């Protein structure tokens, strides 16, 4: 089921620009391998869920999958064939804002080859370019 916040302060928010690179959430922390975005963008809750299903169907109860992003941003849209004006549209879906370098998913407990194949399946679902990152000790 697609994720969304339980409580919010405001129903709608402005679009805003995605500037700079990720300085947080850009290291593999929980698993052994991570899927790291190389460009910024919005990743909808449905896309995050599609990626999770694609990865878990491949893993089949082996290893652990971690989702590192959460859709905090409400995205609004206006209905089709509506004249311009009349105010901002209604919330349509929820999205996670990601900056270049953000780790989207992590996998632990599997071999590197299995993680690579799993991420290759998962990457097809995503609207951003990604690369595989590896855990590095501090």
């Amino acid at each position, binding site marked *: *089921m697609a994720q969304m*916040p*339980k409580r919010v*302060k405001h129903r709608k928010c402005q679009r805003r620009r995605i500037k700079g*690179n990720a300085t947080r959430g850009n290291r593999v922390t929980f698993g052994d391998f991570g899927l*790291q975005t190389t460009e910024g963008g919005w990743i909808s809750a449905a896309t995050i869920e599609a990626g999770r299903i694609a990865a878990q169907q491949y893993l089949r109860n*082996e290893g652990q999958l971690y989702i590192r992003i959460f859709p905090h941003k409400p995205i609004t849209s206006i209905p089709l064939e509506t004249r311009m004006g009349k105010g901002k549209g209604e919330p349509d879906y929820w999205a996670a804002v990601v900056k270049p370098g953000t780790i989207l998913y992590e996998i632990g407990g599997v071999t590197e080859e299995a993680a690579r194949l799993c991420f290759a399946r998962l990457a097809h679902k995503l609207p951003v370019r990604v690369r595989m*990152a590896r855990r*590095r*000790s501090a």
Partner: protein
Amino acid sequence: MAEVLQVDNRDWTGKRRVRRQRAAGRIPAVLYGHGQEVVHLSAATADLAAAVRHGSQVVDLAGAVKETALIKEIQWDTFGQEMLHVDLARVSADERVAVTVALELRGDAPGIKQGGVVDQPVHEIEIECPAAAVTASLEVNINSLELDQSITVGELELPQGASLLVDADMVVVQCSEPAPELDEEEGEPAPAEPEVIGAKKEEGEGEES
């Protein structure tokens, strides 16, 4: 035997010159500690990358200075691919230093054949040991890890003269049954929209004080 790292004295500072030097294959470094003066150094990117790849934490500096140093901190770029800067701290061979050591799982847990999943909540621990005995990683043997069993930090084999700086009861690796997948039809249906904090409730929705 620590890895040897060739270093040069560095008189270039500032982001523009540092960027040029990085592009030319030199990484800025700084050496400090033992109450002596701070020395600005630079090292070849390839040499430093090799030392990091081999898991060296203590290096013998050669060239501009001849000392033993602990790689205290490495700054990486956003993607964690290129090194930006290295902090080196002076150490002597018999000095006790606090280092972070990676934990590597070895073997196959029999619990996996019983339907379990191996979970490693802790990937590195802090230990204190003589600088000469610093190791890159500690091996955790999971050949006897059955279902619903765990291995704690206290059960690990540490290098000679090393002591733990973390709680000995901390679980390093465990084998447990996989969490059941949540079925969408189970449980309460999710609300279409989240609750808005501070929003006035409509009449008839229930009264609150």
